[in-house]
Each structure stands twice: as C-alpha cells, then as structure tokens.
C-alpha cells in the first residue's frame, strides 16, 4: 500500500534514521481529499444497494431513499470534517471502510425488515440501527475531540483494568432473558440491552497496552532458557495466569466461547508484540487449548455448539435431537444457494435462518444475496481495516501507541474471524456480532470508538516531524524494519 505511505525525501532527519524508518512523515499531502472521495463511494454504494432492495421487493425506489442517503452522507461528512480539524494526518481509508460496512449492514437489516412475518418475531430494526450508527459516529467525534493524544489513555491503565473487569463480569450478575440463547453476554436494563463485552474489548486493550509497556522488559529479559524456550519467572507469569483464568471464568459463567477466545488471544498477541518472545505464544496456545478442552467437556452449552459444528444438519432430523439448532445448517444452505454470484439483493430467502438473522447470522444474508463475490469483497474490506490498523501500529512512534494499535487491530481481526468462521462453519459458532454489519447498538458504537482511537494513533504517527513531536516514552525504540 505504498501509495499511502509518506515518502521520505527530506534532509532534516539524520541519515541513519531515515534509512531505517518505514515511515518518515514529512510535509506531504495529508490524504484528507482522498478520504473524501472514498467516503463518497462509501455512501453511494450502500445507497445503490438500498435502491436495489427496494426495486427487487417493492418494484420501486424506497420512499426514504433521499433522506437515508442525505442522513448517511451528512454523518460521514461531519466525521470527515471533524477529522480535517482534529486528526488531519490520520489514515485516509479507515473512515470510508467503516462507513461502507456500516451502510451495507443498514441496508441488509432494512432488507430483512422487509421479510415481514416470514422472519419470526420480526420488528423493524433499520431505523434503530441508523440511530445507533448516528450515536456511533457521535462517539467517534467525541473521541476525536476529547482524546487529544492517545498517550493520555496510558494514565488510565489500572482504572481501565477495573472497568474492563466490571464490564466483563456484569452479565453474569444480571438475570438472563429469553432470547439470549445460552450465552450470557447482555445486560438488560428495562427495555434496553447492552453487550458490555464490545466495550470491554477496547478498554481491556488499553489496560494490556499500558501494563505491558511497563512490564515488557521484565517479561522479556528476566527469563531462563530451557529447551530453546525462554521460561518466564514465576512472578512474571502472574498476569498471564490471571487473564487466562478470567477468560476461563467468562467461558464458565457466561458460556461465551467467543469473548473468551477473543480476550485470551488478544492478550497473547499483545504479550508477544511487547516482549518479542515466541515462548509466550507457545504458553498461550498450550493454556488456551488446555482450558478450552476442559471447559468443552464440562459445559453442555459449549458441547452443543461443537456438536452442531460437526454435524450442522443434525437439527433437521425428525424429531430433532435435544439442544440442536437449525441455524448453522440454514446458514450454510443460504451460502450454498447464493453460490458465486448470489440471488441479488432482496431476492434471496435468507429469512429461513430465522433467529438472529439480522445480528450474528447477517453474513448468511450477504452470502445468499451477494454470493461468493460479495463475501470476498466484505472480507477484503475487513482485511483492509485490520491492515490499516496494523500499519498504524508499525508507524506509531511510541510503544504504548504500537501496542494499542496492534491490540485493537488484532482484536478486530479475531472477532471477524470468530464470527465469520462460526457462521460459515469453519469453527464452532460463538455468540458474537460482525463488526459494523450486524444489528446491535453496543457493537456499532464500540467499533466506531475503536476506529476513532486507531485514527488518533495514526494521526500522531503520521504527523509531520516539523511539528514538535512528543518525547518518546522511556524504553521506546526507533521503528525498525
């Protein structure tokens, strides 16, 4: 993606440094205009999809098309203008990518609203989702305005830990509700439900980044070599054991395989990046496989999930075996029916997926109506978000920023993998939502915040050196290739 790199042809930097840095930000274009053009596409593509659904289902353009288009466009434009003012050097692709995915998700939710009573307990969700998207962009703008520099977050390392733990533990103490279907990942307050795990994902990353930045030397250096592996000291092993236990507890008390995998995976990745020690990965793998195996054998919920992954069509037997669900089988049939080119928007029958068709299983609708072609495009979009995030991590000049960016990006990647892998039958299904596409307020808001933080880090990283750059934090190293 060298087109987005800032060229390094200045003489103000020492020659050694110029030769070794990947990115040497100089007074080059800040790419905001590129972003604006991309953003126009990111609004036009969902609008075309919206028109397509209307034409396919009602044989006419949807009535609210102009308002919807103007609304989406206005939101995106405000976000863009805020970035011009508060993050002028940020990555130009992340905002258009998130806008595009969010817009496509809205269209598909609206399309499934149109399925009416074909979808059991269907209620119009598109308007709500649009409201949440607006709130998400408000959050995004809030982060842009309030977070002057991402390193401020470093101050809140231990507060973050407490908040994350509270958020993660909360669902276990709230009564489950019919419709939660096993995984206890919601907090219900009145008619209002939030999924705290989505926010915990970000806050926990802040904690890990702050914690590891301080401890990385101790974790990396004070170890004994044994059989080619660097074994950490017992007391350094503490944090990893704590996080491991936490993820096991989530699994046991909230029966949430996905979050458990996500948080532990995130921690191992960040630990590896902080210490550059491969041994941590080995430890992480051993511990997660061991933990997962034990829990899978003990927890009936998890066992069911694994069984319906192994035999997705079991639920179609007559009578269906207890505890099985048609969802995965229905989703796979959706994908198969879509084939390479799909049925066309509005012309599929993905409402057959029924439960959670708009949220966890929304990819099934995309697969059926846009086909393999559409799915590949979506994965490319997600891949690009992850890539831009990791690119930001490489470019970031402070270790906290690097850790935070790598953590947020890999959490995003892990979540996409866990959800899409579960829905397509690659791995056992877990209850998580597809970022930006799926119906769900918490998810949309949290992911907009995540994009905002990445953009902030990216802005700092790509800011031209002419401006006074903050002193590198102690222990920071120059970015090496």
């Amino acid at each position, binding site marked *: 993606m060298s087109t987005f790199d800032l060229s390094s042809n200045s003489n103000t930097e020492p020659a050694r440094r110029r030769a070794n840095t990947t990115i040497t930000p100089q007074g080059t274009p800040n790419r905001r205009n590129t972003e604006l053009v991309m953003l126009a596409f990111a609004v036009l593509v969902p609008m075309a999809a919206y028109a397509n659904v209307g034409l396919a289902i009602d044989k006419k353009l949807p009535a609210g098309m102009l308002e919807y288009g103007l609304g989406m466009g206005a939101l995106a434009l405000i976000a863009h203008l805020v970035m011009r003012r508060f993050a002028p050097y940020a990555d130009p692709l992340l905002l258009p990518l998130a806008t595009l995915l969010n817009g496509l998700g809205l269209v598909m939710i609206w399309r499934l609203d149109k399925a009416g*009573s*074909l979808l059991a307990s269907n209620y119009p969700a598109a308007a709500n989702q649009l409201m949440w998207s607006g709130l998400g962009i408000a959050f995004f703008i809030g982060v842009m305005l309030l977070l002057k520099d991402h390193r401020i977050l470093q101050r809140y390392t231990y507060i973050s830990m407490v908040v994350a733990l509270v958020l993660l533990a909360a669902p276990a103490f709230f009564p489950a509700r019919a419709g939660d279907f096993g995984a206890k990942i919601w907090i219900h307050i009145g008619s209002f439900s939030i999924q705290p795990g989505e926010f915990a994902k970000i806050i926990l990353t802040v904690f890990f980044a702050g914690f590891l930045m301080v401890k990385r030397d101790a974790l990396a250096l004070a170890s004994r070599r044994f059989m080619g592996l660097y074994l950490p000291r017992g007391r350094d092993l503490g944090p990893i054991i704590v996080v491991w236990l936490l993820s096991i507890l989530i699994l046991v008390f909230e029966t949430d395989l996905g979050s458990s995998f996500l948080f532990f995976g995130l921690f191992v990745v960040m630990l*590896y990046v902080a210490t550059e020690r491969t041994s941590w990965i080995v430890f992480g793998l051993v511990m997660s496989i061991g933990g997962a195996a034990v829990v899978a054998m003990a927890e009936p919920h998890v066992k069911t999930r694994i069984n319906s992954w192994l035999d997705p069509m079991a639920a179609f037997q007559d009578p269906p075996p207890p505890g099985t669900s048609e969802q995965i089988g229905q989703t796979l*049939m959706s*994908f198969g029916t879509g084939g390479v080119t799909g049925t066309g928007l509005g012309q599929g029958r993905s409402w057959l997926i029924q439960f959670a068709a708009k949220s966890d299983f929304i990819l099934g609708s995309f697969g059926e109506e846009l086909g393999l072609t559409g*799915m590949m495009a979506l994965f490319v979009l997600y891949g690009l978000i992850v890539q831009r995030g990791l690119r930001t991590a490489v470019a970031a000049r402070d270790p906290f920023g690097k850790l935070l960016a790598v953590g947020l990006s890999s959490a995003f990647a892990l979540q996409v993998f866990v959800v899409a892998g579960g829905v*397509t039958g*690659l791995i056992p299904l877990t209850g998580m939502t597809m970022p930006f596409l799926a119906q769900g307020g918490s998810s949309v808001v949290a992911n907009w915040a995540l994009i905002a933080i990445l953009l902030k880090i990216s802005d700092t990283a790509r800011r031209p050196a002419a401006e006074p750059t903050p002193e590198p934090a102690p222990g920071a*190293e120059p970015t090496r290739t």
Partner: protein
Amino acid sequence: MNKPIRRVSIFCLVLILALMVRVNWVQGVQAEAWASNKHNDRNKYDRYAYPRGNIIAGGQPVTNSDFVNGLRYKYKRSWIDGPMYAPITGYSSQSFGTSQLEQLEDGVLAGTDSRLFFRNTLDMLTGEQKKGGDVVTTIDPKAQKAAFEGLGDKKGAAVAIDPRTGAILALVSTPSYDPGTFSGGGKEDSKAWTDLNNDPNKPMLNRALRETYPPGSTFKLITAATAFETGLYKNVDDATQTPKPFILPGTNTELKNASATEDCENATVEHGMDLSCNTVFGKMGADLGKDRLRAQAEKFGFNNGKIDTPIRAVTSVFPSNSSPDGTAMDAIGQHDTRATPLQMAMVAAAICNNGSLMQPYLIAQERSANLDVISNHTEHQLSQAVSPATAQKLQQLMESVVQNGTGTKAKINGATVGGKTGTAQHGQDNSGLPFAWFMSYAKGADGKQVAVAVVVEDGAAERNEISGGSIAAPIAKSVMEAVVNK
C-alpha cells in the same frame, strides 16, 4: 517492536485468508449440494414461484396453476376433475411434496429440466415470465370418464390400453381423492392430508398400478397360451383329458368348479374357457408345470419390476417355487399368483395385437411453455408374448367367452369384443369378498382398438352375487365403447 507486529499482520492475514478459502469452499465447491439439500425449503418455494406447467389429457389441461401471491408461495396447484385424474397426475403440494406424474415430470412442469435451460435463459433475457413446461398424456378423457363413472362408489381400478401402441387411454383407481384439498400449506391442507392418510379405504393408493390382486380366472388365458405355445394342445377344439373330480396332484383335495353342475369333464379348451372351468385349467397347469407357465407369464410382463409408465407398476408375480398342487392353483390365478390391473390389461392388449406386447406409456409428449416439443414418445415392443397363431386362438377363445360364455355383458354392437371374467377368492380360507375381474379387448369397425382390465374389490354385499361377468364386465364395456364407438 515492528518485527512481531509484522508477524501479527501475517497471522491476521492468515485468518482472513482462511475465511476466504472457507467461503469459496461453501459457496463454490459445495454450493450445489447445499442448494439442493432436501432440507433447503427454497426448492419448495421455487417450485411454486412461477406458474407450473400443465398435465394435458385429450388436448385439455387437467391441471391449473393459481396465482395466490402468498408470503412464501406465489402459485398453488389445482386440478380439474382431480379425483378422476389423481392416479395419473398425483399431487403437487406445498407442504407434502409431489407424487406420480407431478413428481416424475417435476423437472418439466417446474421448468427446471436441463432441456428447458435454453428456453429459460431466453425468457430471462427477454423479460418474459418463467413458466413450466407441459406434459401431454395419452389419456382419452372419454374412456377415463367412462371408467371412473363405471366404478363409481365401488372400490377398484380400471386400465385401458391401445393395443397397437401401448398408449394408456384410461387409468382409474377408486375410491380416489382430490389432490386440490391439500395442495396448499394451510391448516385445512394438513387436516385433509392426515384424513386421507388415515382413511381405511386408502384413497391415495393407486390401485391400477400400485396394488396387486389374485387375477383369478383371467389368468386361464395365460395357461391356455402356454398350452398352445408349448404344443400341449393344438387347437381350441382339442378336448382336454379333464377328469371329474380333479384331485390336486399330490393331495386328496378336489379342485372344484364354480358350480357342480358345470359340464367340464373332458371339455374342449374353448368350452372350458366359456364356462371358466377350474378343473380344465388347473389340470392344464399341472400338466404344463410351473416353469413353462412362469416363462409364458413373464413374456406377458409378470415378474418384471420395471414396468414404468413412467409411474412404476408394482411387480406382478407368478411364483417360481410352488408345489405341483400349488402350480395347479397358480394356473387358475389363485394361490400365489398376483397381478396389477395394468398387467391384465397388458395381457389383453398383447392378445389383441397378435401377440406383440407394446410398452405401456402415459406420456405422449413433453413440451415447453411456448409449445416447443422437448420429447415425443417412441413406441416400442416390450416382447412378442405369443406367436400370432397362438394369439389368434386366444382371440377366438376370448370372443367366444363374450358370445357364449360368462362375458356376455360386454357385447358391443358393431365391434368385435373378446373378454375373460375372473372371480378371485382371497383372504384366510377365501373368506374375503371375491375380487371381480374382467379383461377384454374391442376392435371397432373403423380399426380402433382397445384393451381393458377392470377389477372391483367389493362389488356387492353378498358374495354369491359377485362375479366378474356381472360386476366388472359392464364397466369394461362402457370404457371400450367410449373408445371404439366414437
């Protein structure tokens, strides 16, 4: 820290690539299997997403496709004279699948047949609404109606065949059902379906093709055919050495005739056939032996599990391992001999067609919605059941039965009619009400021909009032008249 970040990037790339490979697998390699999975309800909805083609009899459709514009289903199947044509059309229900021609010809009717691909693509490009193709049957509505009304409230079946081609002109099974009562997906449809399935009279059983009966005395024609073909008797006038009483070989049991006064001792073949003497043909069968009888029966289509009209008929059985006394009983269509009504119509047709048995068929033509012909039936011989000379003798026997014997009720003015009655005993110690059979053919003055078999399961409340000649023959007569007296 950049080195591990790059490695993490590669790891994330691998995750995304794994997802891409997986969707390619599911939506590319496995797509067809998932799309056509039997639990994939889309196929059901697709079948009724546009007008279904029609099944046609005598130039007129006997089916319809009604636009109902439901949530899941846009069209619904309906039938014209549903109960009369049900054994041929079968049903095509949103909830309960398809049967008979609706099932076997589903590809053409639903428009998914690969032979319609070009047409469909053209229609898609020109924006014309997709519509399924039509299936043109060989059914003659007049004959079908005559058979259906003739059977009326009785339980039974009738089949009429054009002996020269094998075209099935009528195929009736009673009691019948109206497939329209459960072609939808509603509550009433479910109730109708359950009621029909629980009905002790089995209205959904296709008795003409999917039920076998002991053929009774109608089988005596095959015994006579074996005798002529193997040279046991040369002529219809040959006297048979039939004793009175005739004791079944190897037993002390006497094989009796329908009435003790009947003049069957040493009767000629023709006289024995006129009176339908059990002793004459029981002894003839015993003399011929099971193997020769079976070989002849198989030439007429017995023991053939693949009589596809295309609706497959169940196998009509002539046993291969009967004892000598059992063989004597088999030879008069009792004991273990079983035949479908279609099978006995085929026997009559082969005799009428000078021994040449034509493959019976129901579908004359398949065509697309815009009347392009997809396929035409080509007639072909199933077997040369008997030599033309034997066929002549058998015709002589059958015509004599109608002129002088038990089948006088089938006489038609202006047509040559040959027939054979049957009154088949069944059940434990023959306790069930006998099945009344009549198989016959008619040759009209203008060259029209028809072969018919009729079976009535419960022709009358009193068993001694039941005989093929009195109950089944009039039905056969009206069917034959419908064909030859047009």
